[in-house]
C-alpha cells in the first residue's frame, strides 16, 4: 500500500535528505518549503504522515497545525524541532500534533516515530472498522460479544 508523506521544511538540504531516506523506505514523499505551501499540498491530497519543521518563515509549524484544524484535516503530523524549542514542540502536541522529534535526529529515530505512527494509524483504522461492524450488527450490546468480535485483540 502506498504511503503518502509530506515533508515541510525551509531547509532544502533537510528536504533532500528526508526525501532520499524516506523514498528508500517506500514512502511517496512530497516536499514543501513552508507551512503555507504545505497546507496547500495537504488540501490537494490526503497525506498519511506529515513531517513538519517547527520554525519556518511565512508560516511556522503551529500555523500549519492551526490551518489543518481549520480545514478539518486530521493527518498524523510529526513536528521536527531544533535545540531549544522542545517546549514549543510539546505545545504543538497539545495543539494536535501526533508527536515531535528533536533535531538533530538519527535515521532510526525518525523511522521509529513513523513506525509508531503507522501502528497507531493501523489501530485507528481497525478501531473504526470494528465500530462499523458493531453498527452493522446493530442492537448487540453485550460487552463480551463486542470484545469477542475483535479478531485483532
Amino acid at each position, binding site marked *: 500500500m502506498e504511503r503518502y508523506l509530506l515533508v515541510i521544511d525551509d*531547509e532544502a*538540504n*533537510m528536504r*533532500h*535528505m*528526508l526525501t*532520499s*531516506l524516506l523514498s*528508500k523506505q517506500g514512502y511517496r514523499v512530497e516536499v514543501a518549503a513552508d507551512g503555507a505551501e504545505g497546507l496547500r499540498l495537504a488540501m490537494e491530497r490526503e497525506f498519511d504522515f506529515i513531517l513538519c519543521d517547527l*520554525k519556518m518563515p511565512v508560516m511556522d509549524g503551529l500555523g500549519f497545525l492551526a490551518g489543518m484544524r481549520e480545514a478539518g484535516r486530521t493527518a498524523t503530523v510529526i513536528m521536527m524541532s*531544533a*535545540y*531549544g*524549542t522542545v517546549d514549543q514542540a510539546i505545545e504543538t502536541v497539545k495543539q494536535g500534533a501526533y508527536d515531535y522529534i*528533536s*533535531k*538533530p*535526529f*538519527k*535515521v*532510526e529515530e525518525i523511522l521509529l516515530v513513523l513506525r509508531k505512527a503507522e501502528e497507531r494509524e493501523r489501530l485507528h483504522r481497525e478501531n473504526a472498522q470494528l465500530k462499523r461492524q458493531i453498527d452493522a450488527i446493530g442492537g448487540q450490546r453485550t460487552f463480551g460479544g463486542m470484545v469477542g468480535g475483535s479478531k485483532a485483540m
Partner: protein
Amino acid sequence: MRRWGLTWDSIMTLAMLLAIGMLLTDLVATGLWWSRIDRLQQRQLENLLAVIAGPLVSNPGAVPASPVLVELAGQGICLVLTKGGQITQPISNTCPEDRDATRLAQSQGLAALGSFSTTNGLIAVGRPIQPDQPSSPVLVLVQHTEDKFARLWTHQHHILIYILVNTLILTVIGFFRFSKRFIRPLDRLIGMADDYRDSGPLLFTEPSQANEIGRLSSSLNAMILRIEEEKRKLAETARELAESNRQLRENQAEMVRAEKLASVGRLAAGLAHEIGNPLGVAQGYLQMMAMEGSEPAEIADYADRARKELERVDGLIRQLLDFARSSRSRRERFDLHDLLAEMADSLRMQPFLEGVELALDLAAEPSTVFADPEQLRQVVLNCLINSADAIRARTPAEGGLIRLVTTPAAEAGKGMLQLAIIDNGEGIEPAMIEAVFDPFFTTKEPGAGTGLGLSVSLSLIESMGGRMRLESAKGEGATITLLLPVDEAGGGAASGPVETIDA
C-alpha cells in the same frame, strides 16, 4: 613683625597702664594739694599776724619794727590797721595799689575777727589787736595769693620726670616678668608648631606650668593626637579607596566579560538551534550511506552533501568562537564594511533577528577604521540584539528593519567615521535615554538581558577613542551613532596599539 607683635603690644600696654596709674595718683594728690594750698598760706599769714600783733597788744600805738616791715615788704605782704571799717593806717608801703586790696582789707577789718577772705587773687587775714574790746582796731595782712600754677608746674615737673623714670623701670621689670611667663612659652609653642613634621606624642610639654599656657600645651597635644588619628584614618580611607578602585576596575573587566558572555550565550542559543539542522542532515546522509542497496553514485552524493552540512556546522561554530574569543585585543586598521558585511551574513540566520530585515547602507569611503575589531563586533552585536528586542516589543512586530549606515568621513567629522545603527523598534522614552548607558539598567525581562550591554559598549568604544550616542523617541525607533577613529591620531585617543580589558 608678627613675632614682635605681642612683645610690642605688651610693652606698650604695660607702660601705658603704669603711666596712667601714676598720673591718676598724681592727679588726686595734686587735687588735694590744690584744695589746701590757700589754707596753708592763710595759716602762715595768721602765724605772721600773731607775731606782729604780739608787741602791739600792750602798746597799740606802736609801729612794728622796721626789719619786720622790710621782711613783709620782701614777701609782698601788705599790713594795714583798720578801725570801724576804715583803713586808719597803711603800715607797710607795699600794699597793692588797686582798690580790691584796699576794699578787702576794709571788709576784713569789719568782718568777724580772726577770719580771712580771698578774692581776686588776694588773701587777707585780720586780727583785732585787743580781742576783748569790740572796737579794737584790727590788724590786717593782705597778700597776693601764691601763683598756684607756677608752684604746680614746679611740682609737676619733678613728678612727671619721676613718673617717666618709674614707668620705664617698671615696664622693663614687668615686661621681663610677662615675657618669662607668657611670651617665651608661646614662642616655644610657635617654634614647636613650626618644626612639627611628624607625629610625636606630648610634643608641647610645658610641665612646669599649671596655668593657661600649660593647658594650651596639653590641648595642643590632644589636638596633635587627634590629628594623628585623623591622619591615620585618612590614610586608611585612601587605602580603602585605592582598593575599591582596583576592585572597580576588575569589576569593569568582569562586566565586559559578563556582557560578552551574555551576548555570546544568546548567540549560542541561536546557534545551537541552527546547528541542529545541518547536523541532523549530515547524520541522515551518513546513515543512508551505510544502508544496504545504495548506489555508488548515491553514496558519493550523500558524502558530498554530508560534508557540506558539516562545513556549515563548522562555520557556525567558528562564528560563535569569533564572538566569544577571549582576546587581549589590540587596535588595528581594518575595513569596517568587511566586518559589517561578514556580521550581517553570519547573523541573518540567528533567531533573534527572525522577522527583522537587516539592511546595509555602506557609503563611507574610505571605510577603514582604527579600532579593535573584536570589541567592535561585540558592540555592534549588542546594538543589533537591542534593536531586535525593541522591534519585537513593538506592535505590530512585523516589518522590522535595522539599517547599518556608514557615512563618508567628511560628514562624520575630522578623522572619524560614522556608523549608525537605525531600527524601527518601539523606541525609548526620552527620560530613559540617559539611564540606558548605566550599568545594570534594563527594561527587559529578568534573565533576558544583563543590563550591561550599552554600558560596556560605551566603555569599549571610548577606550578605542570613539564616541557613542543614542537618539530615540517612544514609538519612533532608535539610532545608535558610533564615531570611530579612522587612524591612530583620530579621536584623540592614545596612539599605537592599546591594550584593553581582557574580555
